[in-house]
């Protein structure tokens, strides 16, 4: 397996310059490389083999290697398989040179993060991820808002990178090495203060990548700005952050303090709710998907928090339940979100717009896109028997184990988390119904006469759709595979108690005799019921069909005018939750004849709370501080001479002190 691993990495490495010369070749190379890496990941996580690629010490700070052990294998598999499909879809899109090169660079950097065995390589690859995301966001400079998105995401990721650097520096200071294994060995011996500091720094560092509250701001903006299908790759880059949490926080640091788990739990629960609330209010597809990523990241962190709480309370099965739920959720999200972004790109190319308001009734004209997007929506909205339903079920089951804990606060917070998750799940149904319904269903709100599927066989798109659709059915095998993959972190194979039943197709939440779910059987039973009902109706009723126009109270108005618009669909939520949204609407008179007003213009505003109350104040503070600091560079020679003199005096004073 190591040679396959090596070949895969080499192809990815070569894809970056190849993409500059011939973009389609470069994208195809990325697809192949990621597929190989993904295959290695599947094999490794299932504990069938092991792979590693040594880089040597030329980076400095000790020997570096790219290793695929069980945990890394899971993430290699996810990023590899999904990334391969995304790159395959990119091949058909005729992308630009720079965009494809950045896409290849991003792919290479993400897999390097996952495979890094040494802290410095990890940080280097992390910064390359940041750089490529920043460059990708700023690619279409002419579009308004792009530069803001690029700066914002760049700044936030730099903040995260800085926190990671500080955390790694703390590790280095205590161990003198950059090897992750060395840190894992030394971690139990660190003082609790150091461990807490490292935990917070690592949480900030990885949280900025995945969209943890309150760092979620740039995520939707970045996705909206990233061009076309490459946004799908950007959403896969999220998994680098999750890997960091799994590997460094849970594995290396070994987080096992109760307050740490509770913090992550609450941030995840509230973040999920905030994400979906703002998603409902969005009228552009990619921004919607960005806020939905915030929501799903929140649910993943909810499970992760339960895992930490479980470990801190000495309940290894609870930790396993939480970690399993979180991993299932992130796998589902990676595949489903990538599929959704590919679908959004196809809609954008076919209709020329990303905005929901003029779209409608496109499903008949774009059947393949509608099917694939439908699979993505069903998965992300947690409809049975798809994978999203399975992972959310596991998350709920993990939260329901709160009664096994002794600490009252922990039980309360788990219950609260479950309640917030339920609310989030309900709102997610509403949000995704709005997305799918207003784009693909109903009647068109504007004339879309020349809408047709983008050219190409859509292999990547449909392949990813097929995989995502069957992920729920494949859940038992997926869990058995994850059991091996997470064994290193948990210390035991959770598949033993999770996958039960005579046919080994029934799932339980790690604890025995608690509850069961059988998505494989569901996937058989639900269609069977539907078909049986249709058959009965056809046999017994023999319906004849006659077409009649839609009923609108006796008046025959143009169907497009009496349909719910996307903003109107989410309007009731905005009106009911007016304080949360800061929703305001004004009617401005446009034309007046005599004493009666003929026409009005509508102005609705939603106040994005985090931008308004958190980011903008901090940004203006930073700008003010930097403006003050700029005064240091006065341009006058006399001042610079004075600086030199002061520094010289300080050095002269300090060196003897340091010597002794």
């Amino acid at each position, binding site marked *: 397996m190591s040679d396959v691993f090596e070949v895969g990495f080499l192809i990815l490495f070569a894809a970056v310059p190849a993409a500059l010369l011939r973009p389609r070749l470069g994208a195809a190379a990325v697809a192949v490389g990621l597929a190989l890496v993904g295959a290695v990941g599947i094999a490794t996580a299932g504990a069938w083999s092991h792979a590693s690629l040594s880089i040597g010490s030329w980076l400095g700070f000790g020997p570096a290697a790219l290793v695929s052990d069980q945990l890394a294998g899971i993430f290699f598999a996810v990023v590899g398989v999904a990334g391969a499909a995304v790159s395959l879809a990119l091949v058909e899109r005729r992308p630009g040179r720079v965009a494809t090169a950045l896409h290849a660079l991003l792919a290479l950097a993400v897999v390097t993060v996952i495979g890094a065995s040494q802290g410095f390589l990890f940080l280097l690859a992390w910064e390359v991820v940041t750089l490529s995301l920043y460059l990708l966001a700023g690619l279409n400079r002419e579009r308004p808002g792009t530069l803001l998105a690029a700066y914002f995401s760049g700044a936030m990721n730099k903040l995260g990178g800085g926190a990671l650097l500080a955390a790694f520096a703390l590790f280095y200071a205590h161990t003198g090495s950059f090897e992750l294994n060395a840190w894992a060995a030394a971690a139990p011996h660190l003082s609790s203060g150091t461990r807490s500091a490292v935990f917070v720094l690592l949480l900030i560092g990885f949280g900025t990548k995945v969209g943890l509250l309150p760092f979620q701001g740039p995520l939707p903006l970045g996705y909206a700005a990233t061009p076309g299908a490459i946004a799908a790759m950007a959403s896969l880059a999220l998994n680098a952050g999750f890997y960091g949490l799994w590997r460094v926080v849970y594995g290396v640091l070994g987080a096992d303090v109760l307050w740490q788990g509770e913090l992550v739990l609450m941030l995840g629960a509230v973040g999920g709710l905030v994400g979906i609330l703002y998603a409902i209010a969005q009228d552009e597809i990619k921004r919607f998907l960005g806020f939905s990523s915030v929501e799903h990241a929140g649910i993943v962190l909810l499970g992760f928090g339960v895992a930490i709480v479980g470990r801190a309370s000495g309940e290894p099965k609870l930790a396993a339940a939480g970690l399993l739920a979180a991993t299932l959720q992130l796998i589902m999200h990676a595949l489903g979100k990538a599929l959704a972004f590919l679908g959004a790109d196809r809609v954008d190319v076919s209709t020329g717009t990303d905005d929901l308001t003029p779209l409608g009734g496109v499903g008949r004209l774009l059947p393949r896109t509608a099917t694939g997007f439908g699979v993505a929506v069903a998965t992300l909205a947690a409809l049975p028997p798809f994978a999203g339903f399975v992972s959310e079920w596991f998350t709920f089951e993990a939260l329901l184990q709160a009664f096994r804990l002794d600490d009252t606060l922990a039980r309360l917070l788990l219950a609260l988390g479950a309640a917030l998750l339920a609310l989030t799940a309900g709102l997610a149904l509403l949000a995704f119904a709005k997305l799918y319904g207003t784009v693909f269903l109903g009647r068109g709100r504007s004339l879309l006469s020349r809408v047709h599927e983008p050219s190409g066989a859509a292999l990547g798109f449909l392949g990813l759709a097929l995989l995502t659709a069957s992920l729920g059915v494949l859940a038992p095998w997926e869990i058995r595979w994850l059991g091996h993959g997470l064994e290193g972190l948990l210390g035991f194979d959770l598949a033993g108690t999770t996958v039960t039943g005579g046919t080994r197709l029934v799932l339980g939440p790690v604890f025995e005799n608690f509850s069961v779910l059988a998505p494989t059987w569901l996937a058989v039973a639900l269609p069977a019921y539907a078909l049986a009902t249709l058959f009965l109706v056809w046999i017994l009723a023999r319906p004849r069909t006659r077409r009649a126009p839609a009923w609108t*109270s*006796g008046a025959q108005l143009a169907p497009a005018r009496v349909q719910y618009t996307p903003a*109107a669909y989410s309007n009731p939520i905005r009106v*009911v939750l007016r304080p949360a949204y800061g929703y305001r*609407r004004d009617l401005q008179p446009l034309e007046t004849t005599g004493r009666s007003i003929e026409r009005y213009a*509508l102005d609705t505003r939603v106040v994005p709370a985090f931008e308004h109350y958190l980011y903008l104040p901090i940004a203006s503070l930073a700008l003010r501080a930097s403006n003050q600091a700029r005064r240091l560079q006065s341009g006058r020679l006399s001042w610079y001479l004075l600086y030199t003199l002061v520094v010289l005096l300080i050095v002269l004073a300090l060196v003897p002190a340091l010597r002794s």
Partner: protein
Amino acid sequence: MTSAPLSSDHAQRFLEGRFRGSIEALPGAATALRLPLGTIDRAASLLTDEGARFVSVFVAELPERSLVAAFAFRGRIVALRAPLKDDAAAYPALSLHLDAARLAERELHDRKGLTPLGHPDLEPALHPDPDDVRLRVVDPEAFVIPYGPIRSGIFEAIQHVVETGGEDILQLETRPYFKYRGLESRFDGLVAEQGSALAERIAGIASVAHASAFSQAVETALGIEAPPRAQLWRVVHAELERVANHLDVAMKLAEDAALSVGVARFGILKEDVLRLRARLCGSRFGRGVVVPGGLASEPRLAVDDVQDWTARFERDLFSDRRLLLGTSSFTDRLIGSGRLDRETVERLGGVGPVARAAGISTDARFERPYGAYRRLGFDVVTADDGDAMARLDVRFGEIRESLHLCRQALDRLLDLGETTTRVEVPADESAAFGWAEAPQGELVYWVELSGGRIQQAHIASPSLHNWPLFVASFQSDVLTDFSFIEHSFGLTPAGADR
């Protein structure tokens, strides 16, 4: 509008002092002011500034063909009468200064071809096209929901065009006249009793009020008066009709709030009232009772029986009312919905329980008492909030007052010796206003008679006055409040459209 009522010579002096034109006496509590056509809008504006309320504008044939604008002013009907020459096709629009006159002028334009110059909104009113909706909000986020003309429920046909942003209501346009049957023209050539039968069928749920107003107009024009027995029975029938209408409003509001038990109980009460009326006169809606000159038939129940029934009914009703108003899930929907303020109601000339709930004490039985109301005592029920809850409170108060009036009338009937219920109707030539307080508000008829037959009639319907008030009552309400506000108004499109 709490100024002192005018007696006829006071009226003469008051009007002569302020307006250029000659005063003409009209039968009953009405005065006409003859003035040139070109000054009618200014005169109307001045009169409104003095506190008059717009009633209607129409074309009268007697004593000569003229444009008449009728106002209710300090206890009298003041009619501004401008003679129309044969080729007169236009006149200065009253709506330029009077928002209350917009609908009436549009209808007049469609029916008689007189153009109101300067009307801010002159669109064809009669024969509306359900598909031709005029949309006002220019924004891709807003869309339109047409409520009607076929409504969701057993309701009369009217179209409300709601422009909404999804839940909040941005603009509302109410389009009446879907039920325009041209019944006003049908009066031409009928004899007096037939006119009563026609009046009853203009607004079927306010039959007694329409027949009373019509008979009042005929009797006033011909200088006769119905005998006291007939007047007292007319009061009983009119008040029973008011009770039935208000119970219908309570029932519809309970249905909107999905309070099925409230719907059932108020349905029983309303059915009890209708069955009593059927036993009294053979018609559940009190038809065939009120004719010019008195009553068309003898009541079929003894006064004692009706009094017993009234006592039992009042007990049942007030128990149910207490339970209904104690259900907070019901009252919460009404409080704060569809709030109307006093200025808007006065500006648009609102009448009836809707106006009374906004704090305006206007009631035709009180301002220009007619029939037996001149000798019976009752209170005009008002409220201050102007929202749907206030309108319901006013209605329950009016039910109490109606039953009180019934009891007084029945007591007097017991003591009354004579037995005549009808007098002869002479065949003179005359014209007059007649009015009644219908359950929806003040209803005014103008009837012209000649040679024992009706020449023409005009009706000022309270429901038509109050539709603009309905549109104005939507401040910050949302779609789910819509049916509550509509039913709290309790208007009848059949009466408005005629």
